[in-house]
């Protein structure tokens, strides 16, 4: 396994070096992922290649370990330092373990950013989050409101009552509730991220609120269970299930009509933006709190006190694109 891994890394380095010889003037941006062969990251690479094409003088090196380990990523990073790449954009397997290797890279003038899964502050110039809590909170109620032009009762099916993520998103959602006229959030119930409990809570909602028009489930277990419960209750068309989910898990429920649309990050946009930001940093932009970095067609990202930024609204999936993305993640 160890030998195989070193062989693969060597091969990757060799290929990269050869490519390097061909375009010596190109800027080299390495996209380091958690592991090779994962649909989500292959899609991110697609976005990175798109960015490279748009920029013209960029060559993207898509690489990562064969399994999701921090050790594997350190090996990859060390070989990238040896290759003298201009920037490294990494989705980390470990927040802290990569810091020494990435510090070494930054000492040699390599611009290091993290995206998707971040590294500790001292190991990178900036971190790109796919989205932010306010954006997610707004998106989940917007998804429900968009299909309810006349308004109506809406309920939230969350994970557990103590889940930090979900609670923050729901709190953010309630802040912007006033912007959506006629949308009446009647209750929040908790499915504890268990399929059976979420299913039962959904049945309870259907009974307790006969005029319920939509269920917002910002959890991947909950949204699937709610869609199934709505289907079984024969309420497709009356109650729309929406929230956050993965295309591969939701494809069937979108097709059946139980869910008209839902949202989650778009890995293609994420890879694209990470590459654009890395390019901006190579070009001399400085990553400091308050700075705005360019992300091409995705606009700009503003950094907070921790040098973190949010890319965009979660991406909306519906009948028109869910099949295509279901193959990716």
């Amino acid at each position, binding site marked *: 396994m160890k030998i195989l891994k070193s062989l693969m890394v060597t091969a990757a380095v060799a290929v990269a070096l050869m490519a390097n010889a061909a375009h010596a003037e190109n800027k080299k941006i390495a996209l380091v992922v958690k592991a090779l062969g994962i649909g989500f990251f292959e899609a991110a690479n697609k976005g990175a290649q798109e960015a490279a094409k748009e920029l013209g003088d960029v060559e993207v090196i898509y690489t990562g370990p064969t399994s999701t380990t921090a050790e594997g990523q350190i090996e990859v990073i060390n070989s990238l330092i040896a290759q003298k790449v201009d920037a490294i954009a990494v989705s980390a397997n470990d927040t802290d373990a990569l810091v020494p290797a990435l510090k070494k890279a930054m000492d040699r003038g390599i611009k290091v950013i993290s995206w998707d899964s971040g590294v500790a502050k001292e190991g990178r110039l900036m971190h790109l989050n796919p989205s932010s809590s306010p954006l997610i909170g707004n998106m989940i109620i917007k998804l429900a409101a968009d299909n309810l032009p006349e308004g109506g009762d809406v309920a939230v099916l969350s994970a*557990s009552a103590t889940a930090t993520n979900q609670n923050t998103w729901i709190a953010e959602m309630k802040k912007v509730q006033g912007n959506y006229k006629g949308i009446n959030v009647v209750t929040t119930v908790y499915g504890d991220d268990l399929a059976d409990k979420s299913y039962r809570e959904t049945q309870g909602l259907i009974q307790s609120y006969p005029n319920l028009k939509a269920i917002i489930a910002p959890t991947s277990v909950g949204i699937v269970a709610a869609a199934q419960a709505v289907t079984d209750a024969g309420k497709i068309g009356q109650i729309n299930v929406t929230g956050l989910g993965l295309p591969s898990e939701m494809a069937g429920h979108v097709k059946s009509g139980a869910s008209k649309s839902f949202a989650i990050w778009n890995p293609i946009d994420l890879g694209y933006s990470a590459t654009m930001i890395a390019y901006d940093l190579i070009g001399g932009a400085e990553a400091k709190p308050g700075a705005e970095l360019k992300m091409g067609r995705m606009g700009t990202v503003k950094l907070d006190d921790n040098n973190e930024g949010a890319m965009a609204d979660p991406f909306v999936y519906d009948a028109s694109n869910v099949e295509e993305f279901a193959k990716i993640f």
Partner: protein
Amino acid sequence: MMAKLLKNREILLVVAIIALVALIALRFPAFVTPASFARVYNDTSILIILALGQMAVILTRCIDLSMAANLALSGMVAAMLNTAFPGLPIPFIILTAMALGGLLGMVNGTLVWKLNIPPIVVTLGTLTIYRGLIFLLTDGKWINAHEMSDAFKALPRLGLAGVPVLSWLSLLMIALMFLVMGRTPLGRAFYAVGGNPHAAVYTGIDVGRTRFFAYCLSGTLAGLSGYLWVSRYAVAYVDIAAGFELDIIAACVIGGISIAGGIGSVAGAVLGALFLGVIKNALPVINISPFAQMAISGTVIIIAVAVNARAEKRKGRVILRKAEAV
């Protein structure tokens, strides 16, 4: 006298369930309709089937903590079979899930029987092993609704005389278990082994072998439940039914099945499961905070067990006094 006490306990449970339903009706009157009861029963069907298996094991002074993990593994394999070969007839898939569940139960049974390891340790170990196996099989990936065939998902929902097949299956299992426990040598052996293992040996019952069969039974029922669970919720992943083993054991304990073995009945297990089922289905509609919900569930279980424990204690004293008098 004993028969009368046993009967009393079940009647007590029926009264408790009725009282519970009446309480719920105060806050949510729509709960007390035939359609609502049918839905609660249907929702509790899987728990009933599992509780029946657990009952057999507990009767023999053992415990099966691996039932939920067994359910998850058998369910996952059923889902994988269905995705890989969508043409496979559903009865064949169900039988495979039951056979696999039985096999996993056999592993538990063999370890308890031949190696004499305490049952709680054996099944705590296999619980993790079975969950781990699902991860190895799937790499943590989900099997989703659209990957399963329509027939696979439809069976438990099919209506037969207005009642879903899922409910019919649990009724069938209750009838079968009623026959097994009351009318077969194996069923009587479960009671004998749990009631007094030493005496059981003298009557020619192999204690280890009886326990082995109890585990096979609980495993097979867990396998059946695996298919039912996965097709009902139309999703299979590593963590399905996580923690459900505690609900199963709680159902048995509420139903008056003594953890010390030898005491319990099919009716008790079914009522215990129904009691939990009513609570689980009522809590979402009576509109109280999720934290209060947890506290209520726990309190109700402890009260039920306390009542049962008292009933058992009284009976034990009576027997002792009689023995002293002789």
